[in-house]
């Protein structure tokens, strides 16, 4: 199966390509948007992209269980990150009345 075929018909390269593009979009969200909530969602997208690569490799290595284990760990990390990150957003909003990350630049002053 050549590369382009694989991409079109769901080979390993196809999954990887989707994951990498998803990662790029997540990164772009983090870097380009200023709303903390959106940046936060971008991080989630990037984590998901990693999950896709993990499971794709797991599948193509003959059903490797390690992939699934790390997928679980990533989910755990994502859950923690969601809890803390959202708590921080709330806390910032309380003190600053904003969710714009550029407004939270006190360290600069």
């Amino acid at each position, binding site marked *: 199966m050549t590369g382009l075929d694989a991409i079109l018909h769901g080979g390993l390269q196809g999954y990887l390509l989707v994951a990498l593009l998803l990662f790029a979009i997540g990164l772009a969200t983090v*870097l380009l948007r200023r709303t903390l909530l959106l940046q936060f969602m971008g991080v989630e997208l990037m984590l998901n992209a990693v999950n896709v690569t993990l499971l794709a490799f797991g599948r193509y290595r003959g059903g490797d269980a390690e992939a699934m284990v790390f997928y679980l760990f990533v989910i755990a990390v994502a859950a923690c990150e969601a809890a803390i990150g959202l708590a921080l957003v709330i806390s910032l909003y309380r003190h600053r009345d904003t969710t714009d990350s550029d407004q939270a630049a006190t360290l600069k002053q």
Partner: protein
Amino acid sequence: MNKYYWLIPILPLLGCLFNGLLGKRAGKSLTTFVALGVVLGSLLLALSAFFTMKGLPDHRLVLAYGEWMGTGSLSVPFGLVVDPLSGTMMLVVTGIGFLIHLYSVGYMHDEEGYARYFSFLNLFVFFMLTLVLGSTLVLMFVGWEGVGLCSYLLIGYAFDTELASAAGLKAFLANRVGDLGVVIGMMVLFAAFGTLTISDLLTQAGRLAPELGFGVLTFATLMLFMGATGKSAQLPLYLWLPDAMAGPTPVSALIHAATMVTSGIYMICRLAPVFSLTPITLSVVAWVGAATALFAATIGLLQRDIKKVLAYSTVSQLGYMFLGLGASGFAAGFFHVFTHAWFKALLFLGAGSVILGLHHEQDLFKMGGLKAKMPITFWTMLIATLAIIGFPGTSGFASKDEILFLAYLKNPALWLVGLVAACCTAFYMLRLFTLAFLGAPRDAHAHDHAHESPASMTVPLVLLAAGVLVSVVLGWPAAFGGEFHIGTWLAPSLAYGQAHGAQGAHGENGTHQLAWALASVSTLLALGFAAFGYYSYKDGLAVAEARAARFPVLHRILLNKYYVDEGVELYLLRPIRWFGNLLWKLFDVILIDGVGVNLPGALTRVIGDFMALFQTGRVRNYALSMALGAAALLYVFLK
């Protein structure tokens, strides 16, 4: 009883702690009770210890309290030694100390910081006893430093006046210069003998043949003598003592006349066997002593402040003591310490009584005619004055003529210097006495309000006067039919561990005529000058003023104390200050502040300002930097 003798120095320390810590709350009567009680207790214990020691066959009571510090070859025990020398000195310190404590009750009654004063005074007694009784040079040095500290504290007792605090500082600094000498001397002695315990030191020194090991020993003793010049106010470090009169008068009497200033002489007596091995040092001691005696006596001739006269007199008398020591008359020198302690304490306390009676008037020219107003002070002062000018039969006569006699044996030039100083002494003492007590009152107002001092002050005066009269018995020279008890009494201490006698043999038949001749000359001259002093001032100041007009240059030089203070300022302090200023400007401001501190600071700031351009405070920018870094790493790893 022996096991309580450690309390002799410790009791005053306890008193000091009590008054220092609780004095403000305790109230005056309790403060007085404690302060006097501890010194009295110390005095009684000291008497007991003294007689215990006297009963021992070798006159030596050693109290050891274990090891203090031991490192390598250095081993310093804690211990007290009561022998004839330290025992006598201990009695002087506690006895006169007690009388002065008693006197202070009256003198300091209305002063601020009553408890503080007594706390310092007790502390002084503690340190002085440590100095006197310490069995090692180290412990002695602790006391030595401690009395200096107390001197500083008590001179600066009125610390809110600039005069007093400056005088305190001066005393401290002058003493520090000398103390450096003591430390060096101690180290050299340790290097030479390997011990700092005085008895071991003397025993080892006694074993040395007289002509051996002199370079090192001469250096060590000269260094120790340098310490003595600081503490005992000899040339060139005498400058602090006249200024020390800024302290309360009882302090001047106790510390700056009777006890502390004699610690230099005491130290040399303590180490007499070592000093007598070094003839060069002895000559230096003798000449410095003689020069100081003359120098200070001439300054004393024209001072107006009653305490300043006595201060210069003290310096001069201390010079005599060193002259005696330098002439190998350790017993004679120490005897003069002993007699001087009594009559000079009496003079100071009498002066204090006058000052207090006149409501803090210290100017002699404003006194006069106090004989009727203050009879007790007058009579006791008369006794002390006669003693100090060496009136035949007084204690001053005995000790001073012994010293002059020994000085003549060493070098007639020394005797001549001492003789001139004695004449000056007779003159200025009679001048002081006449101006204060005789003649017509020069300040009617002060005279009208003058009154005799309270009993707590006059009782010590009388007791001290009795001491002056009695002390002569201890050392009436052999030449005049006495036995010079003190010489035989002190011999075991002064010649400790010595095979050869440290005491020059004197009082033999051949020298009796010489002693008679010398004593007659000096006594006649002294009495002549005393009479001269009396007649110059008995009718007021006119005669003296006329004389001052005839010798204006001499008068001005003496009045300004040879311009020594000014000279020190110009040639010593100013260059030091200039050099300090240079160091300040060059090293502190430019090198340390500039290159050392401000330059790194400025560099950090410049770099920081540059780096701050990247610190936007915006999370996105940081995330971008991180992503760029991660991309770069990815490129490196996946290439």
